[in-house]
């Protein structure tokens, strides 16, 4: 069975979790012997996954009549002009949309060249390309939902154009794979997808891919030596990740436990607002901003923290808690997250319930036994959540699709 997989980015040039997830999945599938051809929009050096890489920009774009065929979708230049009229927000993100459409335009030839048995597309950026491939070959289509527009905006100002592409992609797909039951619920409730068509496949993590620190960050370690507790937030500073709720909980903890340091690691469009918010809450001297950190530096921070908090407003999965646990640090995660379905040895709270969050942060700081139990039991759970398991489940999805088609 040949799988043609449409992705958007790949490590090391990834901007977020999508690239990491695609890489983990492609590698696990390739190593279990599946014929996976992984398509990216542009050629650039990528980490070796063992998968057969295909770069769409090395393929001829659709021209003339073929473009018309494609126009039965809605993504020709004319159509794009129409859409820009309809959705003014496209003007601002025009280059990203151009890239998405260019990808789709080239997908037809890619698909014809590779003759897949199954097409698997990851998130809205690849949906137009995946749909074009389905039209070109008639192969069954799997839409993999890593995040929806509702997650990215924290159920705030949804970009209608992106929503429409997501909805179209999910409806055209024969099966929709979501990274959690939490996301399945969003897909069913907000995109009108038949729940019977949706399969939950939780993301994985391979411990070897995660930077693990042997020693904790030195300055922080000294602070800790003076009897201070350290609570860490890791993530983009955007509405979705809930950094403002983290600060609200911090303020409540500090009223009772002033010798606690709250560390915020990450960057994003809310960075300035968050720094101001800390000052406004009068806890500026207890909140430390590290900016964006990665690999060893981040690992040393994980290592020194007593607790990592992920207060996301809406998180389809969430990799941060898994990284924290692999570094031996327990986690407090938002109930509005998919990872809570996988890591049961975690503290959980509703993102808006900062009283509950503060209550649990305080408990972690006061009770070493609680830290130890959560870290050791949670760490074991994470180690069993490997990408191999994810790959096997995807293979089952493909097989069920191919079987149905054969029967017809």
């Amino acid at each position, binding site marked *: 069975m040949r799988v043609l997989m449409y992705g958007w980015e790949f490590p090391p040039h990834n901007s977020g979790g999508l690239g990491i997830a695609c890489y983990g999945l492609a590698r696990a599938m390739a190593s279990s012997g599946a014929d996976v051809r992984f398509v990216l929009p542009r050629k650039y050096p990528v980490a070796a996954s063992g998968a057969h890489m295909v770069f769409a920009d090395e393929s001829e774009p659709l021209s003339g009549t073929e473009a018309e065929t494609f126009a039965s979708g809605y993504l020709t230049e004319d159509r794009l002009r129409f859409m820009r009229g309809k959705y003014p927000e496209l003007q601002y993100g025009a280059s990203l949309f151009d890239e998405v459409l260019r990808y789709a335009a080239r997908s037809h030839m890619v698909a014809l060249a590779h003759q897949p048995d199954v097409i698997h597309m990851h998130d809205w950026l690849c949906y137009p390309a995946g749909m074009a491939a389905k039209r070109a070959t008639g192969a069954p289509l799997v839409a993999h939902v890593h995040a929806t527009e509702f997650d990215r905006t924290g159920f705030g100002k949804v970009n209608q154009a992106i929503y429409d592409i997501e909805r179209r992609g999910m409806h055209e797909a024969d099966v929709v794979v979501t990274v959690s039951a939490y996301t399945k619920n969003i897909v069913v409730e907000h995109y009108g997808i038949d729940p019977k068509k949706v399969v939950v496949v939780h993301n994985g993590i391979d411990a070897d891919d995660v930077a693990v620190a042997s020693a904790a960050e030195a300055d922080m370690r000294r602070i800790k030596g003076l009897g201070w507790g350290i609570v860490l937030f890791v993530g983009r500073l955007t509405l979705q990740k809930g950094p403002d709720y983290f600060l609200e909980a911090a303020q*409540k903890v500090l009223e*009772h436990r002033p010798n606690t340091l709250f560390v915020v690691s990450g960057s994003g469009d809310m960075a300035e607002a968050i720094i101001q918010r800390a000052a406004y809450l009068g806890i500026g001297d207890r909140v430390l901003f590290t900016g964006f950190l990665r690999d060893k530096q981040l690992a040393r921070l994980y290592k020194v923290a007593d607790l990592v908090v992920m207060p996301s407003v809406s998180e389809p999965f969430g990799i941060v808690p898994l990284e924290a646990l692999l570094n031996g640090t327990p986690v407090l995660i938002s109930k509005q997250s998919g990872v809570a379905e996988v890591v*049961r*040895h975690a*503290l*959980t709270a509703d993102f808006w319930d900062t*009283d*509950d969050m*503060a*209550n*649990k942060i*305080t*408990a972690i700081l*006061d*009770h*070493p*036994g*609680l830290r*130890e*139990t*959560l870290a050791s*039991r949670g760490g074991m*759970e994470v180690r069993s959540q490997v990408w191999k398991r994810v790959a096997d489940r995807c293979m089952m999805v493909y097989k069920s699709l191919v079987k149905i088609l054969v029967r017809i």
Partner: protein
Amino acid sequence: MSGVCLYFQVHQPRRIKRYRFFDIGSDHSYFNDESEQDTNNARIARKVADKSYLPANEAILANLREHPEFKVAFSLSGIALEQFEEYTPEVIESFKRLVDTGRVEILAETYYHSLAFLESPAEFREQVRMHADKVHELFGVKPYVFRNTELIYRNDIGSMVADMGYLGMLAEGADHLLGWRKPTYVYHAEGDPSFKLLLKHYKLSDDIAFRFSNRDWEEWPLTAPKFAQWVHAHNGDGHVINLFMDYETFGEHQWEDTGIFDFLRSMPGEILAHPDNTFVTPTEALAQYPSVGALDAPDYVSWADVERDLSAWRSNPIQHDALRALYALESDVKRSGDVAALQDWRRLTTSDHFYYMCTKWWQDGDVHKYFSPYESPYEAFIAYMNVLNDLRARLEVAPAASTHKRSVWEALSHKARGVLHAIKS
């Protein structure tokens, strides 16, 4: 001649409400959840009374009336009894009717269904004494046979209980305790031939308690004649078959629609249909049957989980932490003379609090999760430790100077203290 010894455990803890860090110092009521959650003790008492205790008692009473040979034993924890008095007094009345037949024996246990034997022998004895007083007050009887929390047994517990004058006690017939020996004989404690032990026949007991409604079990459906046949098959292979289980088996763990009440109603008659069979209470069994040998129990044995050891209550750092913190308060709480604080502390000794903190099988959603009113073992721990911190804060409010000063202080009534305070200011 085979004796069947039926014993049912009746227990309900006082569950701690969702008690947060911010409540410390301002809210001293720990067990008064009035929400729709499963930590609402009044609500649980009502539910279990209606689903289980009342209908099961009716079936037992009907059997007692119909079969003069039928006998049964109960152990009712003190903390359950006081909640029945508070929330469902008709349950007490119903048990009184059973005891009044003279063929229902009440066993001894710790009032708070606690693990006090682990940390404080003095507290253990005190709670056993409190329980015996409560049983006497309500039912007018005196217990002679002891059953420890969740059938936990070890040599040293046996000697403690023997020392308190009990004839013997109940224990789990666990394979690692019995080895090649059978649970159908009476044994005695290592080094004490006068202190006898009754061992639970876990196979037959669990056929009712755990497997009754399991459709994957090859013996499903379990009927009273079939079960009586299994009991009868033991004839000549021992003296006594000890069927020990939670009373909530009837109606709460096995729901009414599984036919469990019909089973309970007809099982005694079916067993008595074989003229060789009879029913005995624990005291009768210990008096009638000779001990066939000593049982050495150097390690803890219980009826909980597959391990049948202490791991349900003490196998991870949070459970150890909570137990340590609880008993670290014992001397302060007792010295304070604060009656309300002592009662709260004792309610916190109930073993269920630690059971809820078990992480052993928790991911698989097993029985611990089924029986826990908390979202996770960690939620249980956090609420518990916050409550302990509040209790500690309450004690620190009381004067803690020299013993002499304190006893003088205690001698003053609350009112006198108020007056004294007014004069000073």
